[in-house]
């Protein structure tokens, strides 16, 4: 079973309702941190955790998810529909 960690997002005006990290896929390449250090950090297993789910706007958040070489960052809209990866 996939090792998923969910982070609700409540940023005003955002279409994204939830960030999910697939910890099995995450290899700690830290690309997402380079794009948005406000949103992510690495934990003691060198896996990404979300520290600021509301820190950046939707465009920046999407860019950070797109930067991941293993597509370990999943984004969902407010209705629970996955919007990235498509």
């Amino acid at each position, binding site marked *: 079973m996939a090792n998923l960690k969910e982070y609700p997002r409540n940023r005003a005006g955002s279409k994204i309702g939830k960030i999910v990290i697939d910890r099995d896929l995450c*290899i700690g*390449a*830290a690309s997402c941190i380079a794009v948005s250090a406000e949103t992510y950090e690495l934990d003691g*297993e*060198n896996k990404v955790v979300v520290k600021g789910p509301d820190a950046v706007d939707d465009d920046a958040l999407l860019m950070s998810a797109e930067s991941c070489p293993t*597509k370990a960052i999943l984004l969902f809209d407010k209705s629970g529909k996955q919007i990235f990866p498509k």
Partner: protein
Amino acid sequence: MKEFKYLIVGGGIAGTTAAETIRAKDSDGSIAIITDEPYPLYSRVMLSKPSFLLEKTPKANIWLKTDDWYKKNRIELVSGKSVVALDVVAKTVTVGGGEIFGYEKLLLAVGARARRWDIPGADKKGIYYLRTLDEAKEIAAAMKTAKRAVVIGSSCVAFEAIENLRSAGIEVAEVMLEKYFWEPMLDEEGGRIVEKVLTEAGVKIFRQSEVKEVLGGENVDGVITKNGEKIGCDMILCGIGVIYPVEWAKAAGVKVNRGVVVNEYLETNTPDVWAAGDVAEYSDVVLEEQCMAGNWMNAREQGRIAALNMMASFDPFDLVQGRPESGRTGDKLRIKKEKFRLVSFYTSHGFGLNVAFGGDIRLLPERTAISRGSAESARHTRLILHGGRIVGVAMVDRIFELGTIVKLIENRTDVSAKHKELSDPNFDLKAFL
């Protein structure tokens, strides 16, 4: 001849990030990427993972950009073409077949290619290299029927490939020149921890060994080593290092040492030519030396910085000094030249072990190494020190302190009087931050 304001050679993460960075700031400038692979950007790091090689997840997952993305961003993707010549005076690049591309700013982000064997029998079917998607597809296909594999070399790719081969039920013999796995990137204690998990998984290891000849008819059926060992196999995965495909740049006068030599701004010795990613031999401002780093994190950030500096090189004084417009709207980008500054790291996973490398882990003559942990504890960190500072780290299953050590490297923290604490695996290095 097609002319581009920004021409990028290499369609991997460095080149593609450069194109993306340029398009975000310069909406009009023409951009082209020339790549010798027939694909849009994909995830090279996924090629050695079970999800791809063992087809555990849908293949679509390796794609990071679609053809539509290039169209939407007006980035011309010239795929399946190898560059054969560069003319830095005429400012043109020629690809195989003779097509010529003009540039105003050129980025060399060609990456690396797997070095090919040149021993007797190296042309037989069943010998594989792992660097590109096409190579990985061939390996995935071969693994469906192979029974016995020989793996050559002791690198990240070899480590991850061995786990895939074993998961597929294939017998593995590991043949390496080194005295222990991952020498000299790990020290012997770290290497032995890795070898223990390999041996427990049934891998037969041939140390300080080199294949003399590949045996078989049309297809491989074994190898014979210089020590006289004969090992039967029906596939060989050959990891004997990489080469950088930049002969054409060197011939044009671009300075090439191991890779393309660039300064801290990723500028080559040639006007209007930059380099980024695996191929760049760059001046590292943290470590104060020329470095090469072949990892995703480094390539991505270098692509970004090179792109900013390519844009900044369009007469930045026009705006500041209020000189008349040169007539080009795209040139007033208000971008300042930036130094590349990053302590990159990467990890490798297999058989339940996490192995990580950060900074510059070469144990050069003027450097010292400090061990934390032991083979008995199955956890080990090796710190490389230079001038009282940590400059590199290699670790086996102590990944919890990777972030802290990378920060100590970044901060250039003086640890010259702290050797006792550094060598105590129970001492929390966060105390030095």
